[in-house]
């Protein structure tokens, strides 16, 4: 019988712990498929964050570090400086990267650290139960913003890709989404490009992936995909913010 689909070998056989309808699973698979297609699985060293994807080290079938909350870019810096020829990546959520780890990601980008960051933005703290994130939208309800985020009290959501795109050594910055097949394919292309540029030694690379959190948004998986398109995409526009000129 002909094999028509095979799970990538860059993922382990461990069952994901993610909630139904959460798009972390899709994003994990995209990263893993890219590692396999670029023949990097045996060479890769990943860094897992604190947040919903804290157990990512159980899912990626390559060497992994678990980092403290927000510190993945500093940990990846240490790894890449020791192993400059390895493919190094961090996988971080919006609480981890955009809040507590803001200094680490900005300075890793500033130094042009040659690793790839997969930044999963679902506009909420998932693992701790739905608290407000720096990326939570105005009016969006969270357990620490029960009446919805008020910009006069909590400011406006942080646009990480736009901010990092101002840094010269952040050579590749792109925002993608995984709410439908077309966008999933585009997301994979961006992730692949980021890893290719890393291996060419170009500089810091980041792909921001808009993601859903049905559990903490209080929506069904299908409603969540629609909510992402209608609410997140207008504020967090998709697109490439930085690409090396010669590419």
């Amino acid at each position: 019988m002909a094999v028509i689909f095979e799970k990538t070998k860059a993922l382990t056989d461990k069952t994901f712990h993610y909630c139904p309808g959460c798009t972390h699973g899709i994003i994990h698979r995209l990263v893993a498929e890219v590692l396999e297609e670029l023949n990097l699985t045996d060479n890769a060293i990943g860094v897992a964050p604190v947040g919903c994807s804290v157990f990512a080290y159980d899912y990626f079938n390559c060497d992994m570090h678990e980092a403290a909350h927000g510190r993945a870019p500093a940990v990846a810096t240490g790894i890449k400086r020791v192993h400059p020829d390895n493919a190094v990546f961090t996988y971080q959520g919006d609480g981890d990267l955009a809040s507590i780890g803001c200094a680490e990601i900005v300075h890793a980008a500033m130094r042009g650290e040659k690793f790839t960051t997969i930044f999963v933005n679902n506009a909420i703290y998932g693992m701790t139960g739905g608290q407000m994130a720096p990326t939570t939208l105005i009016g969006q309800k969270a357990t620490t913003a029960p009446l919805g985020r008020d910009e006069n009290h909590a400011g406006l959501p942080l646009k990480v890709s736009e901010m990092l795109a101002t840094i010269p050594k952040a050579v590749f910055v792109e925002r993608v989404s995984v709410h439908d097949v077309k966008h999933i394919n585009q997301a994979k292309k961006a992730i692949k490009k980021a890893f290719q540029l890393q291996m060419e030694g170009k500089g810091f690379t980041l792909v921001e992936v808009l993601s859903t959190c049905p559990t903490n948004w209080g929506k069904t998986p299908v409603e969540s995909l629609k909510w992402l398109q209608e609410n997140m995409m207008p504020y967090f526009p998709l697109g490439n913010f930085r690409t090396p000129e010669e590419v």
Partner: protein
Amino acid sequence: MAKELWKGNEAIAEAAIKSGCRFFFGYPITPQNEIPEYMSLRMPQEGGCFLQAESEVAAINMVYGAAGSGARVMTSSSSPGISLKQEGISYIAGAELPCVIVNIVRGGPGLGGIQPAQSDYYQACKGGGHGDYRLVVLAPSSVQEAVDLTQEAFDIADQYRMPVMIMGDGMIGQMMEPVEFREVAKRQLPDKEWATTGTKGKRKANVINSLFIDPAECEKHNNKLFAKYDEITKNEMRVEEYKLEGAEIVFVAYGTTARIVKNAINTLEKEGIKAGLIRPITLWPFPYASIEAAAEKANVKAFLTVEMSMGQMVDDVKIAASGKKPVHFYGRTGGMVPTPAAIVEQVKKILGGVK
């Protein structure tokens, strides 16, 4: 090799390089700045990597990444900066990674001051970060000893897979003394099979981690760490005993304070008062046995602990003496340094009291 005059901070940095340390991540803070400054010049000469991090928090996490990748790696800081590193130190201890952390201690609390102090003893020896863990804490009392202990520190870290702290007060970092970089006996060190290097398709993936979501597993991990700490207590305890024979007063002091105490001991000797010194070189593991033994001796009337703090190590001296002999304390703090004359006076007060 002939002796050369070296400043403590630079001597520690050179000793680290001679010990095979090839990665250094740090952040400026007085009075340890000569360590990162020296490293920024010397590391590239040796094919290593010096990086000035954006914060102490980032520096210790770079150490975590590099240590997990199998490198010999070091960071240095001073008290407020070491406070910032505590989260990372706890993760490094939890993930069983070897590294060396230098603390050139200054006065506290808060921003405190920049003069020498020993008020980080609790932080170094009694936790500092969260959870049950230990650091091996080495306390040099001269620049030569700082050099010798730096070389040992990397081997201890690699042998037991744990962070080792070199704790010197500001004086150790800032003063210049004659130094000889000696060959240290090489230990048989285990291969770093656990390090992340990329699997190269030859082994299962390695994971550097301190997360155990199942409490039974987490407890098991703690038990494993503490079995290791018991081994270290047996094998790595270091202490200097000075003029203990027939001593009425036994001082307990470490680092440069111990040298001031020796000066006081010699003054007391001339006045016909016999005093000796127990100088812990490893603050953890602490040399309880030396103090226990002294407490048992009939000639010992009392202990006097001298520290540049409000009294931290004195707790361990009391535990070891377990009420058998009185334990007194004399300390200066905030960057003030005890004088031999003040220490002599304390002894006379104590002896006046027990006679």
